């Protein structure tokens, strides 16, 4: 954002001189240009969000969905149900929240490490670098559904490639369940990480292009090794990129819906019960959209707090530096 405004500032003089003849247009042009974005934002984000918040305060069950306006107010009832951890619904939400936290942290770490490793490995020029780069982007370019469905096939117990390979290598007896029981979380992290790491790779690679090469040259003249260069040049230079990247990765994984939905279908195991999927089930399977909306609002509040705290802490640190 800030970059865009900075570069835009010096440019205007030429077009402005032409438009000065028509002051009316000049005054309205910025608003006219902004209008589509504002409208879209309104219809795609703001209004649905407000409707969601409204829904969380009414008893929107199957008895009222044909005529929303007749749904009686529930006050804080939906929130009480969702947050009553002695009750089955609250306990389910809490468990799902725990699973999601573990899932997000591990997936983000996994994606970042893999993305960083690949970006560093492809930093020097060599023959075939373009091909490798393209190959690395495949998980990201592939439609999510197709990619995850392929994983679903590979992770089958009797016919899956994963069990076959592990068995051929004499690592397991080839009878491991990957999609039910405790292993489901491992599968979920692997698939989500596989889908996401290329984004980390892409971003970090782009960030690395802007690190002046002289720095590396100077460092290697001074005798710094690769690891030292990475720690003292690459990592600090990528700090602004990393700050945004980690936050975005976290928000994406935390609210990931496609991966569990496609990977597990209707038979999702408790170990892979991510929170957005849990909320979906709470609203669509039991037709209780009020409670589902209350859970969504709680999720929104949680993510806002995390994001706010993250920006506050990292912002303060970078100002100090």
């Amino acid at each position, binding site marked *: 954002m800030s970059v865009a405004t900075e570069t835009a500032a010096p440019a205007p003089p030429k077009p402005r001189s032409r438009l000065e003849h028509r002051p009316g247009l000049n005054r309205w042009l910025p608003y006219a240009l902004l209008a589509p974005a504002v409208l879209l934002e309104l219809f795609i984000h703001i209004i649905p969000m407000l409707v969601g918040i409204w829904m969380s305060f009414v008893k929107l069950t199957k008895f009222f969905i044909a005529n929303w306006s007749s749904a009686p107010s529930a006050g804080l009832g939906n929130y009480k149900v969702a947050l009553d951890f002695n009750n089955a619904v609250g306990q389910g939400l809490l468990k799902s929240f725990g699973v999601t936290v573990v899932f997000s942290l591990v997936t983000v770490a996994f994606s970042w490490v893999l993305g960083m490793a690949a970006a560093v490995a492809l930093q020097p020029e060599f023959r075939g670098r373009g091909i490798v780069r393209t190959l690395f982007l495949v998980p990201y370019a592939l439609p999510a559904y197709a990619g995850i469905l392929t994983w679903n096939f590979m992770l089958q117990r009797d016919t899956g490639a994963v069990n076959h390979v592990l068995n051929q290598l004499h690592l397991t007896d080839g009878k491991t369940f990957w999609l*039910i029981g405790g292993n489901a979380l491992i599968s979920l992290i692997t698939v989500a990480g596989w889908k996401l790491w290329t984004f980390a790779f892409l971003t970090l690679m782009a960030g690395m292009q802007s690190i002046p090469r002289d720095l590396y*040259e100077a460092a290697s003249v001074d005798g710094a090794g690769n690891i030292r260069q990475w720690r003292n040049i690459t990592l600090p230079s990528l700090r602004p990129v990393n700050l945004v990247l980690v936050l975005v990765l976290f928000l994406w994984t935390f609210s990931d819906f496609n991966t569990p939905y496609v990977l597990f279908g209707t038979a999702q195991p408790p170990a892979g019960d991510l929170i957005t999927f849990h909320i979906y089930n709470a609203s669509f399977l039991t037709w209780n959209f009020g409670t589902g909306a209350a859970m969504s609002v709680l999720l929104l509040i949680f993510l806002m707090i995390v994001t706010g705290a993250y920006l506050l802490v990292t912002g303060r640190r970078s100002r100090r530096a």
Partner: protein
Amino acid sequence: MGPIRLRRSAGARDGTRESDVRLRSLVAAVAATAMGISLAACGGGDKDDSSGGSTGDQTLTYWASNQGTSLDNDKEVLTPVLQKFTQETGIKVNLEVIGWNDLQTRIQTAITSGQAPDVVNIGNTWAASLQATDAFLPFDGDAMTAIGGKDKFVPTALATGGKEGTDPTSVPLYGLAYGLYYNKAMFAAAGLQPPKTWEEMVAAAKKLTNPAKNQWGMALAAGSYTENVHFAFINAAQNKADWFNSDGKPTFTGDGNVQGVLRYLDLMQKDKVANPSNAQYDNGTKSVNDFATKKVAMVINQNNADSSIVANGMKAGEYGVVPFPAPAGGEQVASHVAGINLSVFKNTKHKDAALKFVKYMTDANTQTTLGKPFSSLPVLKDAKPVFTTDAAEAATFQDVYNTKSKPLPLVPAEDQFESTVGKAMNAMFAKIATGGTVTADDVKAALKTAEDQVAASS
């Protein structure tokens, strides 16, 4: 890293700029693709037909469920039937066949948005839940007369149309019932008779199980919550246990319920007559395919399994069907009253045409035409089953449907019963398959959680 960079540093700058440009266009392309995908994902599922009643004056929109071997097969079967209706009445029918995974969500969306078709197929177990939404036309005296009167239907089938003592909001279209399919050759080779009690069934299954050869007595759709909950219901009914009391409050933790669920789980846990892999079978087709390809000796399925069994190469005489047996001394319940019902949306602009269509779909001729391709039992009193040439099989299913079936709870919370209890059973099967143990106390605790969930949202 260092040395390479040093050597190339002179020419590197131009190279970087060029690759920068390439990279940027690449990033743009990837971002555009990603956005396209996420937008498509948002739109997924509700490519709603705006034709929901607004076009022409005599065009009905009809959402059919998947009854044949595929969505295309359904379309092929239904198209001539609908054309005949158009010839007779001049009313056009706009058909859309919807898979079972999407049907409930589509109906929900239709109810919520008011953008609904005129006529829709529903799973008959949803009838009372959907009735509670008040979005469907009640078949009161007049409407019932318009479709040919309630006396033409089998009474137990019509009873699934809605809550007891109310005007039903759906009428039966295709009848289905569970039966125990067994492989005749395997039974003969082992010197076994078709089982009449649960104990005989388990004994036969044990005899026909040989894990070393990957041969199993039974296949279970143990990862399908809809299948699982049916067996929870039937096994509990055999124990004379109910899932809801007369006030519509859940009573999931009764002894009969717990023991019924455990008895079914024990097929994999204690009796070990089913492959643990079955815990991943998330629909009935997978277990039926195991039976049809002779990997297992028995499977309990609804009579629409016939088309899949035959499609997989087994011939009609190679398998037999007996009622799904109760334990000795138990209640003779072999199935729930399964099947598909037909509903009309209340906000239809073509009420009369819609009722004519319902009448046409439930008349004797149409029922006979559709009975075979969809392997369904007739829902009409005097009709004969036509889905199989095997007279004994037809008689068995007709007997189960008419005399040994009990309707699933006809309460608004029925759908929640299905999802909570069914999913609890999925999880318990998963635990068993991955080496854990499920005791009666575990079952009770799981059912208690399900009961709390239902109670919380009703």
